[in-house]
């Protein structure tokens, strides 16, 4: 084998070896451990009442947070790419802030605003609204951590699209809403979808912020990730692994969706 | 340094880029590899440079078989079509790169870079970055960079393709004069026959991975070996199997019994010459190239009927 080819092979083995040790083996291990004793224990673990509740709660929260973030994201993207005002850079930074903040800090910050002793605490108590230690708080926490995705993925697509098509629609008499719905949105839809996929994955997997905000009350404010921790702490490794595998499968589904969509958006990754 | 290519073949998958190509380039010659896209000329150049390896055949530079030697050991200077500047380095560092790789002392590098920048007329731009240069300047920097290590052979891959007409014309002239000064064996690739004719001492016409003909510009123009070469070099009228050069066609006032009758369809004044599109008596279309004076004498205008005398047409064996 020539020196060149040997070098190439060596580099490849190093990279793949690293990935195998860090990603591949652990993930493979979890699937193995979970199904080690067959399907039955996994099934009963996954259908335990608290597990089921956690699953549906997770979905419910995601079903609220993600659409909200999608609307926000598209709106923000339009504002930043098509609007004309000073402070765009600053606004962009603010939207990106959730990326720089630890989820635990997000949880804390939300408690400081919406908790009983928080800024809005009195007002909320007076009006009988419970946010912290309840589902609404968890929705807000989830929304915060998954906020930037749709905006970030939509912006470049909007930028590349340019205003020509939109201006053409205007000259043909379309209203702003019509232009948006029939010209802009269809053109950016894959960017939006990709952002929604990322946002959903992040929302489903959120742990730290929701952990603080939820109070971790079993059967009431436990999402699936919180449930995994709960089972672990109670030495129910079967239960923990089963829930973990469920989440892992959802994650793999997300990866698949991301991969399929990558071709449609500006090719982000090498193929 | 003389270059010899012996029976080189190269294919990319199913595509045959070069089929058994052999070529000799004399020491100090300025040669053009001319042909349409896909003719294999760039591939041949890259094989000579060592940037590609042939599937079979040999490359000999200065009597040494370099077929298995990698590019960096062949002592060839290569100028890329889009200049391949090192964008993160200044012009000075770009030009001096080959010398710094050879661990020459800094003072020597500075001296040589200065000399070369003077040669290519980029003095004063040493501290600029490639992103700040124009196309023509980038091309000259690329040339200076290749010459810095005193290559035995200089190879240029469509060096002027990405430039606009005016700059192209200037650089062609400039390359010719540079070669007169430096006398390095130079091979350049082009698809522009005018460029090849104007600059090169020897032209190698390629098509579909083969060499059609090699010779001086005059030889190729006046004695083309086949119809491809004739059509590629210089304008041509095709009448069935026969080929006639537009400026070999004589146009005369209409006189009985002399030449063939033809109708003037269109007259195009191209400044120094005039192009006349004619329809022959038998319905075929040809075009002729004549001087301004000739056109004036004939009082050329559309719709006119004239006599046309065709030279002995060239026919090539199938």
């Amino acid at each position, binding site marked *: 084998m020539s020196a060149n080819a040997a070098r190439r092979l060596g580099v490849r083995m190093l990279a793949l070896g690293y990935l195998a040790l860090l990603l591949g083996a652990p993930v493979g291990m979890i699937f193995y451990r979970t199904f080690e004793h067959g399907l039955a224990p996994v099934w009963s673990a996954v259908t335990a009442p608290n597990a089921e509740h956690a699953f549906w709660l997770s979905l419910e929260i995601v079903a609220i947070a993600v659409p909200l973030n999608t609307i926000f994201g598209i709106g923000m993207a339009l504002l930043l790419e*098509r609007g004309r005002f000073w402070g765009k850079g600053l606004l962009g930074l603010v939207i990106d802030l959730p990326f720089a903040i630890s989820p635990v800090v997000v949880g*804390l910050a939300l408690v400081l605003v919406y908790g009983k002793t928080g800024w809005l605490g009195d007002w909320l108590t007076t009006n009988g609204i419970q946010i912290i230690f309840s589902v609404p708080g968890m929705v807000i926490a989830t929304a915060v951590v998954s906020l930037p995705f749709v905006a970030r993925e939509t912006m470049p697509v909007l930028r590349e699209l340019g205003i020509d098509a939109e201006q053409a629609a205007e000259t043909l008499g379309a209203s702003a809403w019509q232009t948006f719905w029939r010209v802009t949105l269809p053109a950016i839809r894959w960017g939006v979808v990709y952002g929604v996929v990322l946002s959903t994955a992040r929302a489903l997997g959120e*742990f730290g912020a929701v952990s603080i905000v939820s109070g971790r009350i079993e059967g009431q404010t436990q999402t699936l*990730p919180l449930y995994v921790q709960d089972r672990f702490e109670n030495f129910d490794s079967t239960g923990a692994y089963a829930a973990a595998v469920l989440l892992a499968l959802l994650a793999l589904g997300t990866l698949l969706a991301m991969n399929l969509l990558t071709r449609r958006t500006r090719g982000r990754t090498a193929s | 340094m003389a270059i010899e290519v012996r029976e080189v073949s190269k294919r990319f998958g199913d595509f045959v880029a070069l089929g058994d190509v052999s070529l000799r380039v004399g020491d100090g010659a300025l040669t053009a590899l001319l042909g349409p896209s896909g003719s294999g000329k760039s591939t041949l150049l890259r094989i000579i440079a060592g940037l590609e390896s042939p599937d079979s055949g040999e490359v000999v530079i200065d009597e040494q078989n370099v077929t298995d030697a990698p590019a960096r050991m062949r002592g060839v200077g290569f100028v890329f079509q889009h200049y391949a500047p090192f964008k993160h380095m200044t012009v000075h560092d770009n030009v001096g790169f080959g010398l710094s790789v050879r661990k020459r002392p800094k003072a020597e590098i500075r001296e040589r870079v200065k000399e070369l920048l003077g040669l290519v007329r980029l003095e004063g731009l040493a501290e600029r970055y490639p992103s700040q240069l124009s196309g023509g300047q980038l091309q000259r920097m690329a040339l200076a*960079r290749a010459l810095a290590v005193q290559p035995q052979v200089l190879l240029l891959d469509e060096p002027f393709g990405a430039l606009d007409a005016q700059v192209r014309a200037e650089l062609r002239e400039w390359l010719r004069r540079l070669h007169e000064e430096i006398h390095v064996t130079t091979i350049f690739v082009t698809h522009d026959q005018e460029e090849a004719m104007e600059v090169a001492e020897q032209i190698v016409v390629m098509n579909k991975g083969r060499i059609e003909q090699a010779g001086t510009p005059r030889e190729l123009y006046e004695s083309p070996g086949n119809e491809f070469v004739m059509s590629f070099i210089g304008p041509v009228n095709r009448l069935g199997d026969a080929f006639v050069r537009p400026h070999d066609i004589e146009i005369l006032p209409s006189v009985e019994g002399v030449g063939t009758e033809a109708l003037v369809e269109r007259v195009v004044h191209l400044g120094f010459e005039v192009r006349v599109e004619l329809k022959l008596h038998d319905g075929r279309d040809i075009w002729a190239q004549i001087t301004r004076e000739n056109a004036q004498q004939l009082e050329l205008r559309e719709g006119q009927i004239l006599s046309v005398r065709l030279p002995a047409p060239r026919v090539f064996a199938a």
Partner: protein
Amino acid sequence: MSPPPNSQGALALGRPRVPAIGARGAGALGKGLLGIYLSALVLLPVAALLSKAGSGGTSAFWREISNPEALAAIKLTLAASAIVVLINAIFGTLIAWVLVRDEFPGKRFVNTLIDLPFALPTIVAGVVLLALYGKGSPVGVDVAFTRASVGLALLFVTLPFVVRSVQPVLLELDQAMEEAAASLGAGPATVLRRIVLPSLAPAIISGVALSFARAIGEYGSLVLITGELPFKTEVGSVYIFGQISNENLPAAAAVSVLLLLVALVVLGALSFVSHRRSRHVR
């Protein structure tokens, strides 16, 4: 549907020309709603955080973060993150190289897998690492409750950043530059050192910045495998969580703001450096 009014007609009727969609499409109501959403979710909480952290003045802030347990946690966080992003810079670039320049069966699968840490919930990442590198590990490697486990978890969750940052740049890199260097006499190592890496530097730096910001805030993957032992394997985020559980909100807020500031400073500084290095390349 009635035929669209032609613009000529609209002008003739004195109707104002419809301006670009962004400026008017969102409209005042739209902009207002966006503003409220952003405030409720980001601006207000961050303001409350800063307020709480500074509520006792700088002396109180200082006291909170120089508390021995807090200091230990912060130091561990910063040190572990720094080491991890360095490893990422090397291996991330290596992996990106292999994914772009190399060919092998299953490459597309591997490429997709790189995003797994992005998609996987952090708690699951912790469980997954624990299964292989914790108690009862089939390969006999048990790093649970050690500092190494902190590094391991952080390596896992920050894997994609440098890879994904470098890949597109590598894809677009003009190989003619490398060929030019070779034709000028440079060997493969020199080409790597003087041509490829400098061209990739801005992207690597960018990826490192994102990795670092992510690493110092990481929580979920560390919860199980590190055991959260104070002064040993307790990181900043875990300390903050502990203080919140103990209703010591000022302490939690102080350390939070410190970590946030570090993240912003690092992001800002590295972004600046990356920008400067790439100003001639674009």
